[in-house]
């Protein structure tokens, strides 16, 4: 069972490492990389589900009888490209956050936001 389910367990471990990076690290770039890790682990999950022992790549040729399943490949192709689109957008948001707050650490940003809120309250009361 260890060999049969090894791929799935590695996928779960990679997914959890990615999730841990997103939750526990304050730097925004590190969070984005954690998200990339999470994403790629899902890709590995789908692609190892598609593999058939004794099959080859799903390109039709005359002397091959067994092919690996092409459907998850198509889904993951779309997912990889959508993933890079969201990463590019997330990175441009990080650039703008750095310009607005001066830092990309979650704690600094949170502190500045709370400071702005406290200043607004003081000004309303005064």
């Amino acid at each position: 069972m260890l060999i049969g389910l090894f791929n799935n367990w590695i996928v779960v471990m990679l997914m959890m490492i990615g999730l841990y990076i997103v939750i526990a690290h304050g730097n925004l770039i590190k969070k984005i990389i954690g998200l990339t890790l999470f994403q790629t682990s899902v890709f590995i999950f789908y692609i190892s589900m598609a593999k058939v022992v004794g099959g080859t790549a799903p390109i039709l040729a005359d002397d091959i009888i067994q092919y690996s399943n092409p459907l998850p490949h198509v889904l993951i192709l779309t997912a990889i490209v959508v993933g890079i689109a969201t990463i590019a957008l997330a990175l441009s948001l990080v650039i703008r956050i750095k310009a607005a707050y001066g830092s990309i650490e979650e704690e600094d940003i949170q502190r500045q936001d709370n400071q702005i809120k406290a200043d607004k309250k003081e000004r309303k009361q005064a």
Partner: protein
Amino acid sequence: MIDIVLLTLLLVVAIAIIRMKDLFAVVMLSGIYGLLSASFFVAMDAVDVAFTEAAVGAGISTLLMLVVITMTGRNENTTRHKPFPALVLVVITGSLLIYGTLDMPYFGSADAPVHSHVAPRYINDSMQEIGIPNIVTSILASYRAFDTFGELVVIFTAGIGVLALLSSVRRPIDGDKIVCINYSMHEQHLVVRIVTKMLIPFILLFALYVQFHGDFGPGGGFQAGVIFAAAIILYAMLFGLSTARIVINQPFIQLIAATGVLLYGSVGLVSLLNGGNFFDYNFLSNDPLSGQHLGILLIELGVGCTVASVMIIIFFNFADYRERQQSHENEQNQESS
């Protein structure tokens, strides 16, 4: 056997990413992670996916993150919030997921549920219905063309989003042209400049090959677009952004991005106008098989155009923002001194 080794290496790289504080090393490790995933996909017979992951995950993604960390700082803050609750949550979720995988079919079994229903139909019937050897391309471009249309629009939207966030109206300065002809930032990197100038035509040619041979081997619009953009980005990195902006006209690239999406949608509309369903290529020509070939060719062209232009747009906007930031800092330093 090799996939077990690759997966273990992936795990080691992932743990190293957690531990490192230097963001430059972390980005490089994520590039290695992408490359190892691409090798794993080849071992799993997913050649198209491996191609895309190598180009996108190990190439473009690493490049964009490196450009961003030059602007946002290289090191992570050393104090972190307490990791213990996160660790507990992650361990609980992980053990629940592993408990869920105990029912799953073993790796590589030919009677798993995923291999029934639609997949055998694609494998057995795609040669008569569509007539191209690469089953992944025929599913992507014909059977599931609508999903690929959505994917293309997502990439286009990301390009628009980056333009909205980072671009600004540039006043063309005459000094620009003089600066870039006289001053090349990398005069000392003579070997790199000469070799790159020789390589760029071959990279572009390879991109076109991948675009048009996606029917017969691994390849297609996405991979070709990314490789094309990589050649242009290489030129921009070595010869300076102002030189690259003279060679590659920015409004033209934005027009090409929109034209790709328009081309893809038009193929679907023409099928509608000819009496079939949306994206039903059988109605594009006199006999269904040549209609399918024409349809796949046109939409892959649209995909290649848009992906290449959007990657170029994203890189140029990131690099341009950095240049503007640096020139603002230089002006402020000059004013204060």
